[in-house]
């Protein structure tokens, strides 16, 4: 058990190192660099930058050195806990991400909560009452939920909410509270803005989870141990919840690996469509502007979280499923 964990940890570290190199290299792959896209931006706004100035800027940002030198400098600083300065935002990367990470977490948790509290009961119900009317309805809704891309759903809900309900669109705060310090009114304002994006974020995941839960549970329900349990006169509730549901939960546990990075980035496309100040749009923007330090930091963060998530999901799986634990012994 211990050797297993140590081995996983070392492998994890190695993976993170690979991710850091890939992250840094991929962002620099497109032709040009931050200064090029910066100049293009200025040119679009009507300003011009001479070649002299561009070169001065490159020197200022330490560009023009070989990429492995830039990477080396960056990674040494990252290990020391300094993520560097975002070129586009002209602020420390940690601050730029910090601005958004709490709201992102809040939103993702809210969405997750909605997802699980809808998906689990519905999934179980659909499996236990297979081919009932309610099962058909949930199946239909579920398939629509899976088939419709969630950004489209976001647009439809956004438009409907704006057109017919007069609800505020875009962002998580009304303009008057965006600047204000945290007060009860601001919390209420946030609470008013939160449900819509949380629901949209949750819906597609919910549909998928319902399907997974239903399929897994159906498999389990047909197994001999369930028949035995029933034959022994266990109550239906106990029969279903205590054994098959527990076994069917495995995919949920293995999902944790993907959950971690998701919690931090939020759904990128939905955030862009709804104008949510989460980390997702920040990443897209950083990639477009070739802001190496910001983009690199976020990609690295997501990578590290995926690795940690995988590690934790392995542990959780072993905890919920004794069969896996015994394999190791």
């Amino acid at each position, binding site marked *: 058990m211990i050797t297993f964990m140590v081995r996983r940890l070392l492998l994890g570290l190695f993976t993170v190192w690979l991710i850091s190199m890939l992250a840094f290299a991929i962002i620099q792959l497109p032709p040009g660099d931050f200064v090029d896209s910066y*100049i*293009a*931006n200025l040119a679009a706004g009507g300003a011009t930058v001479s070649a002299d100035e561009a070169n001065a800027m490159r020197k200022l940002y330490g560009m023009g050195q070989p990429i492995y030198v830039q990477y080396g400098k960056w990674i040494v600083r990252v290990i020391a806990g300094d993520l560097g300065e975002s070129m586009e935002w002209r602020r420390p990367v940690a601050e*730029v991400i910090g601005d958004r990470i709490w709201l992102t977490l809040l939103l993702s948790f809210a969405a997750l909560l909605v997802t699980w509290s809808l998906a689990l009961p519905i999934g179980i119900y659909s499996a236990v009452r297979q081919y009932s009317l309610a099962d058909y309805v949930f199946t239909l809704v579920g398939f629509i939920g899976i088939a419709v891309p969630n950004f489209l759903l976001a647009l439809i809900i956004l*438009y409907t909410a704006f057109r017919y309900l007069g609800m505020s669109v875009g962002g998580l705060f009304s303009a008057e509270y965006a600047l204000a310090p945290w007060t009860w009114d601001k919390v209420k304002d946030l609470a008013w803005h939160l449900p819509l994006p949380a629901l949209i974020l949750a819906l597609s995941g919910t549909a998928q989870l319902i399907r997974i839960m239903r399929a897994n549970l159906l498999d389990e329900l047909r197994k001999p141990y369930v028949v035995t349990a029933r034959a022994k006169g266990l109550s239906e509730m106990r029969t279903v919840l205590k054994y098959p549901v527990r076994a069917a939960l495995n995919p949920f546990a293995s999902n944790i690996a993907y959950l971690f990075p998701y919690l931090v980035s939020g759904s990128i496309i939905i955030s862009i469509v709804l104008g949510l100040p989460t980390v997702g749009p920040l990443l897209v*923007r950083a990639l477009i502007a070739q802001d190496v330090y910001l983009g690199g930091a976020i990609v690295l963060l997501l990578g590290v979280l995926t690795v940690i998530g995988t590690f934790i999901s392995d542990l959780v799986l072993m905890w919920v499923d004794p069969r896996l634990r015994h394999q190791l012994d």
Partner: protein
Amino acid sequence: MTNRRTFLGYATALAAVPAAEALAQAVQATGSVTQSGLVGKLEGPIPAGGPKPAKFSEAPQLAELVKAGKLPPVEQRIPAEPMVVKPVESTGKYGGTWRRAFIGPSDGENGNRIMASDKLLFWDFTGSKIVPCVAKGYEISADGKVTTLFLRKGMKWSDGHAFTADDFMFWYEDIYLNKDIVPGPIADMSAGGKPGKLVKVDETTVQFVFENPYFLFPSMLAGDTLIGGGQATRQSNGNSYAGYAPAHYLKQFLPKYSSEAEVNAKAKAAGFESWIRMLHVKKDWELNSELPTLGPWKTVTPINTPTWSMERNPFYYAVDTEGNQLPYMDKVVMTLAENIEVVNLKAMAGELDLQERHIDLQKLPVILENRDRGKYDVHLDLAFNGADTTLHVNMDFRGDELIGKLLGTADFRRALSMGIDRDQLNETFWLGLATPGSSAPAESMPESPGPEWRKKWSTLDVAAANKLLDGLGLTKKDSDGYRLRPDNGKRVVIELLAVKAFMDWPKHAEMIAQHWRKIGIYGDVKEAERGLAFGRLLKSDHHIFVWTNGGTELLYLYSSWALPTDIASGAYGIEHAKWYASNGAQGTKPSDPKMVEALELFRSAAAKQEPERNKIAQEIWKIMVDQQFTIGTCGQSPALMGVRMASRRLGNIPGRTCIAQHCRTPGSARPETWFYKA
């Protein structure tokens, strides 16, 4: 991405059919956009030259600060010779927060433009007359070599420190001439190839002295140029121009006033890599709320946070005709929108008080439909430049001998131009609100060569275009009707490099390529990300670049999208631009004598007086239109920052404002005179 946009397009189109029809009818019935009811009278606040008001008053918050002893009284805060502005409608009321949206740290122009009154000279609301601004007046010597600026006595920075000629000398000697900060001299500051000087005459008088005549210089100071753009624009984003800088504040960040080691240590302590990096942040009003400025507001929370906010500058130098210190509005709060769609939706929901930037013309029907719900008025401001969508032809393409030769041939370009159905473009992309024609500016502009040059070679004439192309020996066609190259028998393919930016130019290019089928030319649209496209322009390895020609309505102030004069853009051949900029020392001379003629005319103009200069510009435009160096399609429209949504609670909002590079839209409409009626 595309799907999302397309979808919203359909949604809006579906939702708004009645409004769109009404609009189309309104436009058709009158036969003129200007009578659709949405284009108001061109008007604006006037810097009144009249007598100084007898008494001054100020915003209530400032009066309280004065009472508390935290601010000097208003009479001492405004200059002895304040700028007196006559608002459009009436004297306003103090108070309120202007809610606006911006799209990120790269959107600094959003705020810079409302700070435009920190320019030395400016244009009036018509965009055609130079008016005082920070400087109360100017004088140019008879030989055109010396431009004198007269400053306002007793004018102060936003921190209360005196603003004098020393701030100009500080900028000139310690910033502009410092090679660490400004790598090389700028063209704005030289006449006839010789760099000029900045000289202090007395506390409130400075002179720009040149070795050659430079009659254009006052226009440069008023224009959106490096030298005249004002502190907000030209000392942000790593720029260090604008002619003046707050000496008393910035000295502490320069090695000259202590030592390099000391400022570097200071920079390290503040988390910057070097003193230069620190200086670029400290002199940037978008980032540094402590920086003394001259504009109506000053930054409170910087642009790199989710909300870019500003509050009034208690030392602002302008008053209204009754002596009330401007601005009327207390604050400006700009919220970060993750994308442009959100800006449009928020504006339609009435959550933004005045927004023209990032408002999409294509959404006009829905915008009109929601006017009463969102409680706003819609004003369409028409631009003066020839074409929002212009085909910029590379005159020095070397990647393919035949294509290079064709692009360099006037008849080929004329044929391409006559093969474009501008009316269809106008209906599809401008809702019929643009004026089709060449790239020459609107007839109302002093540099306009006249109405016939708006039409020349610039109306649909497939037969004539085909005749010209046949005449060039491109007579063989394939089974699809496309013309074949004489050298290798393949199709003649013309690439249209297009970027999705202010308008969806790749879509415009697609439609033009469809039109060209009828003249047998295969147009190949190459959509590129903005940075990549501009990178290609620098190497001039494109055929034709699709972009606006905004700014060219004042050719001398902004020629980048008309002629190869700008070495930062190789749209017409980077080697030609180098040749022009270096006076022939570098690059290659254009092989087309007409291009050389246009460039020489352009060079000669800076030393000429205004009437003559305008005549020369007209001559240049005649050459440009006749030669079709740039192929215009549709323009003089509200497409670029011209759809203005103004809350009905606002007063002093002009019916129509100048939208142009040099007018700093909405700067010349003087946002400091806008106010909340209720």
